[in-house]
């Protein structure tokens, strides 16, 4: 039994593999958890899925060729999250690219500044984004990944990352502007 990479082959690993895994991959558990949490919009589901992904990563560790461990792990995390969503919340994966349903004006820096003081509201706005937009925001803005890393994690060309990110930012601005405007009108 030998592993040729993710998705094929299984390895039974020894304690040396484990030591290497704990040194190279396990330090990225926060990244794994953070991505899961935002893709699944739930801390408790994220705990389960991050754990599953981490153990899956371990099983496929021989398939890891020693490159960017974080990107390698996050790719597995992302796939595990999508599998989970497919199984548990298929609807979320289906409402992907309807971004032009509500064409609104972009938020101004001012409305964003107001929204930014409220973590809750920002989190909610982020969670309203379709998962494919949400993930690029998380990877770029929270995780600080390069386009190349995002491309490898999400298995799409760099050009697609670029346009997804552009649209994701636009949508997030819109999502943030909306409640801010509504609240402003309530106050009047």
């Amino acid at each position, binding site marked *: 039994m030998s592993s040729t990479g993710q998705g094929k082959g299984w390895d*039974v690993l*020894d304690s040396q593999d484990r030591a290497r895994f704990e040194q190279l991959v396990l330090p990225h558990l926060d990244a794994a958890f953070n991505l899961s949490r935002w893709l699944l919009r739930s801390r408790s589901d994220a705990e389960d899925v991050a754990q599953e992904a981490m153990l899956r990563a371990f099983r496929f560790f021989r398939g890891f060729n020693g490159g960017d461990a974080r990107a390698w792990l996050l790719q597995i995390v992302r796939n595990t999250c999508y599998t989970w969503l497919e199984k548990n919340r298929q609807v979320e994966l289906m409402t992907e690219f309807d971004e032009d349903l509500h064409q609104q004006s972009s938020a101004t820096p001012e409305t964003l500044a107001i929204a930014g003081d409220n973590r809750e509201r920002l989190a909610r706005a982020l969670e309203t984004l379709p998962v494919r937009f949400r993930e690029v925001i998380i990877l770029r803005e929270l995780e600080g990944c390069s386009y190349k890393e995002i491309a490898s994690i999400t298995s799409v060309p760099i050009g697609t990352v670029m346009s997804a990110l552009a649209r994701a930012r636009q949508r997030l601005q819109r999502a943030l502007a909306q409640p801010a405007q509504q609240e402003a009108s309530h106050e009047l």
Partner: protein
Amino acid sequence: MSCDFCGTLLHAYFDGELDAVRAAEFERHLESCRECTATLGAAESMRSTLQRAQLYETAPTELRKKIRGELKVSTASTSASPVAAWRWLAAAAAILLVTGVAWFAVPHFRATSPESVTAAEVIDAHIRSLQPGHLTDVASTDQHTVKPWFDGKLDFVPPVHDFMDEGFPLLGGRLDVLGERNVAALVYGRRKHFINVFVWPTKEADTPIHPPGSRQGYQWVHWRHEGMEFCAVSDVSAEDLHELAQLFVQ
């Protein structure tokens, strides 16, 4: 959006993903494009908003501990748990089953064993154990945990020893059925492999470690020692099995 640059190129610039030439080109454009200036400002504002909000959520300490624990038990040479072990074994078992291994014309132990346990039964039991959740009922590297676990579950007391120092770490035990009788199955690790040692009582005299049998990539050895009958089966080499058997009779 009327300005072509406001689309994706602006974001690539904002993220520092443009090469120097194109970045300079974009900066020249920026001087005269209000739309781009506004979009860039919004992107910057968004970034600082996101950062200020501290949205990054770190993993709970408990989770880290749990994963470390799971990694430990899923590492063959140290120990195994039913949960972790079945996950990798699931695929192995699936492959074995899917290849449609046919177990026919199997030599019997009958010649030496009145209990009529056939090699086919032993190998079947071994393969069955590799299916999800079947490897161990009690997962522990501690013989003092595994041995008492059998108390009251069998009408005999199987000898349970950890041979970690000899390269055969005890991974756990379970109940199994061979030749219509309940047997103890002790699970050992050998490098990347698993070994089942089936144990049941016998009234026959001791027999030496029987020359290994082999079928479809599985090896087994059989012996009787101090009122117990043993059969060890695995995909490890016959030499490895013999070595383990010797540890039992020492």
